[in-house]
């Protein structure tokens, strides 16, 4: 198994070594450069995903061609779109509650970027791409991810628009209802690993579960406990607000929800933030259920990228095919269904692990 690198040297230290720096200075410079690289890679993904991949994928699902005029496969639409979006007028409504109106679009992408700090993204050449590997990595990444809902409420409330307000309130209701099942389901993985450290969780999954005709199936938790995987997938879709749970935005109902009043750069930031959260959701899925960066032949980082893009593809698929649930139905599914199932899953896993171990 390539790419599983528990206990290896992390990216900031590698950079510091490369530059020949030591001590606190080395740690600081290494961390800054590392964060810069990782952050930009993620931003580049969203840059490709937002204006181009999303269009192409949706088009494929809906019998269309989508962008194909500018550049190869229409790829230069990314540049055209950036120019278009950034050159628009930034409209701030009368009565907007500043500075929370201005802060909301910053918090959303920032919270997602923070989450990537602890994700083990595997190796690429000599580099082990992980910025930090704290003991409580899993708790930290959930904490970062859920800051997003604060941003949505802030934006929704500060816009002084009734549609925005409804969007913000929906976002809170949805996040509370789905965060608990999400984390409780993740805990069932921790029951196996006994550690919140993400590198440990990845390493645990590198063992072989079964060997069928010489092909060894790794002990990814998606294979070990598929039920938890499905639960987590659904809760994750709700957490990041994608179809069929896109009710905080719900175009055709509440116009665009919390981002109704946002334009230009602020809109771009919200848009980026949403995509970053989709990728962060994919990264969490990959890390705790799909063996992190593990995979044959290709470098670990490539496998990691494939996995988070696969999750992105899945969200777009759902977007093209599934109706949106109603707000009361969403809450009902969350509290009466997901919560019960996730606790049942946790208790059962604990019992089974306890009996075997």
């Amino acid at each position, binding site marked *: 198994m390539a790419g599983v690198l528990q206990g290896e040297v992390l990216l900031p230290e590698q950079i510091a070594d490369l530059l020949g720096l030591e001590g606190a200075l080395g740690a600081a410079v290494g961390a800054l450069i590392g964060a810069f690289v990782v952050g930009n890679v993620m931003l580049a993904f969203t840059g490709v995903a937002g204006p181009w991949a999303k269009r192409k994928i949706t088009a494929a699902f*809906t019998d269309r061609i989508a962008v194909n005029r500018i550049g190869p496969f229409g790829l230069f639409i990314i540049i055209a779109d950036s120019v278009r979006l950034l050159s628009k007028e930034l409209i701030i409504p009368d009565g907007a509650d500043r500075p929370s109106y201005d802060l909301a679009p910053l918090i959303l992408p920032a919270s997602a970027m923070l989450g990537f700090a602890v994700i083990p993204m595997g190796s690429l050449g000599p580099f082990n791409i992980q910025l930090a590997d704290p003991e409580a990595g899993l708790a930290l990444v959930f904490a970062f991810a859920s800051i997003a809902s604060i941003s949505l409420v802030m934006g929704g409330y500060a816009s002084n628009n009734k549609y925005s307000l409804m969007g913000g309130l929906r976002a809170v209701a949805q996040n509370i209802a789905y965060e608990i099942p999400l984390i409780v389901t993740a805990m069932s993985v921790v029951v196996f690993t006994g550690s919140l450290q993400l590198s440990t969780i990845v390493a645990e999954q590198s063992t072989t579960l079964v060997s069928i005709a010489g092909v060894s199936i790794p002990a990814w938790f998606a294979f070990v406990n598929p039920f938890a995987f499905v639960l987590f997938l659904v809760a994750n879709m709700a957490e990041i607000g994608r179809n069929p749970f*896109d009710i905080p935005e719900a*175009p055709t109902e509440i116009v665009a929800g919390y981002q109704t009043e946002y334009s230009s750069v602020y809109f771009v930031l919200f848009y980026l933030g949403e995509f970053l959260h989709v990728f962060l959701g994919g990264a969490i899925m990959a890390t705790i259920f799909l063996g992190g960066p593990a995979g044959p032949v290709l470098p670990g980082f490539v496998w990691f990228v494939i996995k988070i893009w696969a999750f992105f593809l899945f969200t777009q698929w759902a*977007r*093209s095919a599934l*109706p*949106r649930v109603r707000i009361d139905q969403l809450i009902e599914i969350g509290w009466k269904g997901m919560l019960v199932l996730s606790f049942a899953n946790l208790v059962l896993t604990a019992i089974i692990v306890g009996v075997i171990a």
Partner: protein
Amino acid sequence: MSVELPADTDAVQTPEEIADLLGDLVIGREEHLNAPGFVIKPDTVVDALRRLRDQAGFDHLSCVTAEEYEDRYESIYHLTSYDDRTQEVSIVVPADKENPVSQSANEVFRTADWHEREAYDLIGIEYDDHPDLRRILLPETWQGHPLGQSYDQDQPQVVPLREHQNPLLEDQKADNDSETMYLNIGPHHPATHGVLHIKTVLDGEQVVDLEPDIGYLHRCEEQMCQNSTYRYQIMPYPDRWDYISAGLLNEWAYARTAEELADIEVPEYAQIIRTMGAELCRMAAHFLALGTFALDIYGDFTALFMYSIRDREKVQNILEELTGQRLMFNYFRLGGVVWDLPEPREEFFEMTRDFLDDLPTALEEYHDMMTSNEILQVRTVDTGVLPPEVAKSYGATGPVARGSGIDYDVRRDDPYGYYENLDWDVVTEDGCDNFSRLLVRMREVEESAKIVEQCIDLLEDWPEDERNIQSNVPRTIKPDDDTEIYKAVEGAKGELGIYIRSDGTEKPGRFKIRSPCFSNLQTLPEMSNGEYVPDAIASLGSLDIVLGEVDR
């Protein structure tokens, strides 16, 4: 004839019996081409309509036409029956020229609410006991009544909103202690399918009160028709009422009324072409209804929308071959159609057959993705419920009525064109909810396909020397003075009726359009009050309104 006849009712059949029933309420008699007319006093409207509804089965107030004459104002209530469309009666209510007051029919038929508001707005008749007599199409501050005789077109109409109605002003703000929130949905909103303004009062996410505010797309279609000649000038306008590819259906409404008015025969061959074209239009319109309903339920980039647009595109291509146009067809003429099927005919037939052959697969796909989807079912079943009695009181027709289990279709109940010679069924669903209305439209596409297929077969075998597409119609048409007629066809959204009073010239004296969407939209508060915002939006989608037809 394979179409089932409506059941015979015990209802009063002859004009004499109706006259007996109305008794001393009748102060005069008129004869309209479609129905007997009874003149009654303006303060006996409720009494007369209630007797007709309860004792004679006239449970459908199809339309209210108002007009100003030299010596009087007049409202005409066009009544018919959901059980037997051929039973028609007109109740004529003259009102005083100086003080035009007439009793409101709202107590008997809820649909009178909007119809009378329109009459008040455009003509100027005041209705006593009307719950909410305000302008409906024009702004509330409008001066004068545009279809009245003393209307001064040069009168300036500059009334800014901020002086008239400004929700930001202190004295117009809602009570601060209230538990509810007022929300404007539209006129610019992704789900209003045009320019519709819905004044909504919300309690949390639930709708407490909801009122559609229409008139943003009012284009004076009635007056434009009154200023045009029967022979050629009016026909292009109907295309612009329900502009969602239902053009031929609308044209047929005018063609049917005018042909009956001027006593014009239509050759059988032309009737078959008309029937085929109209049903193709109905399919295109229903595909779009399906797609936009999917937008409302699924979100902005659902595959279903593109799929239904793709299938509508195929129909549009066929219609383009047939009429030369893709949207504003202008294909019907009084006495027939403007030209024959395109040459080579075989290619046209093949194209249409290909489409019909692919249709079952396409519909199967819709059923897979839509009606059998569980999320869609929990979203639409038992939401937007419209009980049949309520639907009838509001004059709901078309798929909306049939989705409430009302077995009513003008094509069968008051046959025209070639429908009565073809084998097809009227589709009804008993669920009364959004899901039923969706199912009705999907099944109606199948029925339309059956009709088109039979028409194609007939056209293919039609002898070459008998392909008569137009009868001999005089260059100018001048129906006799003071002839009145109200006729309807089954449009894509329901009963599309037209009232014409001729004044002896080559232009109509009064031209009134009964729009199905206008009546259907009236039911929205009934369906939405107490439900969640997303369901109100879904109900609006399931009504399938076209604002061009609502506002005319």
